[in-house]
């Protein structure tokens, strides 16, 4: 492995890491701002102009707050829970292609940490691991509300993973590849997968809400019933880790949705822009476009959160098992039929 390659990868990883953290931190502010705007308020605006330093203040508070460990809690697992949640939330962004290969002082650098040819399955694996953070943390708290939250989180994640997987299978029939890089390249211009798989996207979107435990599917941390759910006993930085994990999950799932269904870094007229801006600035525009799509999705997550009330638990299970899974299977069948039809004639 040559040194330049190593440096290049490290640089991409570090930039991605910082970017993820920044976006997650500012998502906390954005969440409060969006909530405020949707409710005719102004939101936090005291720390800096328009409250831009609010995340720093929140972070500082979180670091210096007293951390309590409940009596009878399992010490190691109590720490392992939030750590695992944070770890698994970071892992997902490794396979997302952030842009076309960029010409960086004469060196072609691919804007992707790694292109494994089972990228989509990898995302699935990471998502399914994410539930361990919630489960372990909830169980280790030695508190029945936390345990209830953990159990809810686990069953919810397992249920919605199935529908998510099935909706992806229909997409794979269209793309013929499991690699994010290939899928992103296929959607050149405005040839986005969304036009071929609108139903699949809808199912994936609903499942993404459920997998990231966002309203209307935030039953694992449902305040009205479970106090705080799995994070009832957490305080200080461990609590912060859980919160951060949620926002990073939101970021990563937005990135996955943007890449799979909305063309990733592709936008109409990209060839024209690439010709005029060259191979250094052209791809950067693509990166900006992708970030714009991701931010739009994050806004959508928040918008839904402050509009739709929480589901009841049996409604959640009914939706997952009796509506989304049959829909996803129907979607696969229809897609397969249409593709076979077009291939034959």
């Amino acid at each position, binding site marked *: 492995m040559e040194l330049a390659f190593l440096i290049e990868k490290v640089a991409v990883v570090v930039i991605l890491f910082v970017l993820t953290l920044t976006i997650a931190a500012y998502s906390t502010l954005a969440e409060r701002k969006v909530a405020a705007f949707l409710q005719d308020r102004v939101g936090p605006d005291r720390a800096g102009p328009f409250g831009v330093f609010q995340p720093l203040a929140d972070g500082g508070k979180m670091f210096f707050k007293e951390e309590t460990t409940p009596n009878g809690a399992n010490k190691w*697992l109590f720490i392992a829970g939030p750590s695992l949640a944070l770890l698994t939330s970071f892992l997902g962004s490794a396979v997302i292609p952030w842009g076309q290969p960029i010409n960086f002082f004469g060196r072609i650098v691919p804007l992707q940490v790694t292109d*494994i*040819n*089972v990228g989509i*399955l*990898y995302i*699935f*694996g990471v*998502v*399914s*691991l994410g*539930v*361990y953070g919630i*489960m*372990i943390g909830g*169980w280790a708290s030695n508190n029945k509300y936390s*345990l209830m939250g*953990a*159990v809810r989180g*686990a*069953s919810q*994640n*397992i249920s919605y*993973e199935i529908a998510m997987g099935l909706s992806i299978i229909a997409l794979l029939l269209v793309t013929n590849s*499991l690699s994010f890089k290939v899928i992103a390249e296929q959607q050149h211009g405005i040839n986005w997968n969304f036009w071929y798989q609108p139903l699949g996207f809808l199912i994936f979107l609903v499942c993404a809400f459920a997998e990231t435990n966002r309203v209307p599917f935030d039953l694992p941390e449902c305040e009205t019933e479970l106090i705080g759910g799995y994070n009832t006993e957490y305080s200080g930085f461990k609590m912060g880790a859980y919160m951060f994990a949620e926002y990073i999950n939101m970021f990563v799932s937005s990135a996955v949705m943007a890449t799979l269904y909305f063309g990733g870094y592709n936008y109409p007229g990209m060839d024209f822009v690439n010709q005029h801006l060259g191979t250094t600035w052209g791809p950067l525009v693509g990166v900006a476009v992708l970030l714009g799509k991701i931010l739009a999705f994050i806004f959508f997550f928040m918008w839904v959160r402050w509009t739709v009330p929480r589901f009841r638990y049996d409604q959640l299970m009914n939706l997952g098992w009796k509506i989304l899974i049959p829909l996803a299977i129907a979607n696969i069948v229809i897609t397969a039929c249409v593709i076979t039809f077009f291939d034959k004639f």
Partner: protein
Amino acid sequence: MILFYLVSLLTITFSLLVIFTKNPIYSVLYLIATFFTFTIHYVLLNAQFLAVVNFIVYMGAIMVLFLFVLMLMNLNKETEPMKSTLIKIIAVIAGGSLLVTLIGSFKQLDALGISTINKPEIGLVENLGKVLFSDFLLPFEVSSILLLSAMVGAVLLAKKDKTDNG
């Protein structure tokens, strides 16, 4: 090669810990770690698809269900059921026979000589799919029917008996 020995050592350590820890929750967590080392083994063998599927199905789904059930039952040292001597003897016999079978199969492997595959990309999704849907189509479909019947059985078991509650 060093990596292989390191991962194998970890695998064996974790699997021993699965057996020797008292707390069933810890056992499950060590089992998850064991499966994770399996995943690494698969990656080392260049079987990416198997690695990821092992990751999703075993670590991500089945072990979550294990953990789920254990958490709901809330087994502690105090509530652990008493194990009678008979059960222990049965367990020893069962384990012993499994060991004998394994040793026997290893002996046969020696006799056959280690077969090597000289196609390194055999484990990739594309090749695997082609092989599954051409050479091994019948076993593949039969196993899918097996899974389907298991699913139907599970649904039937879980379904409420209508005559029971009127």
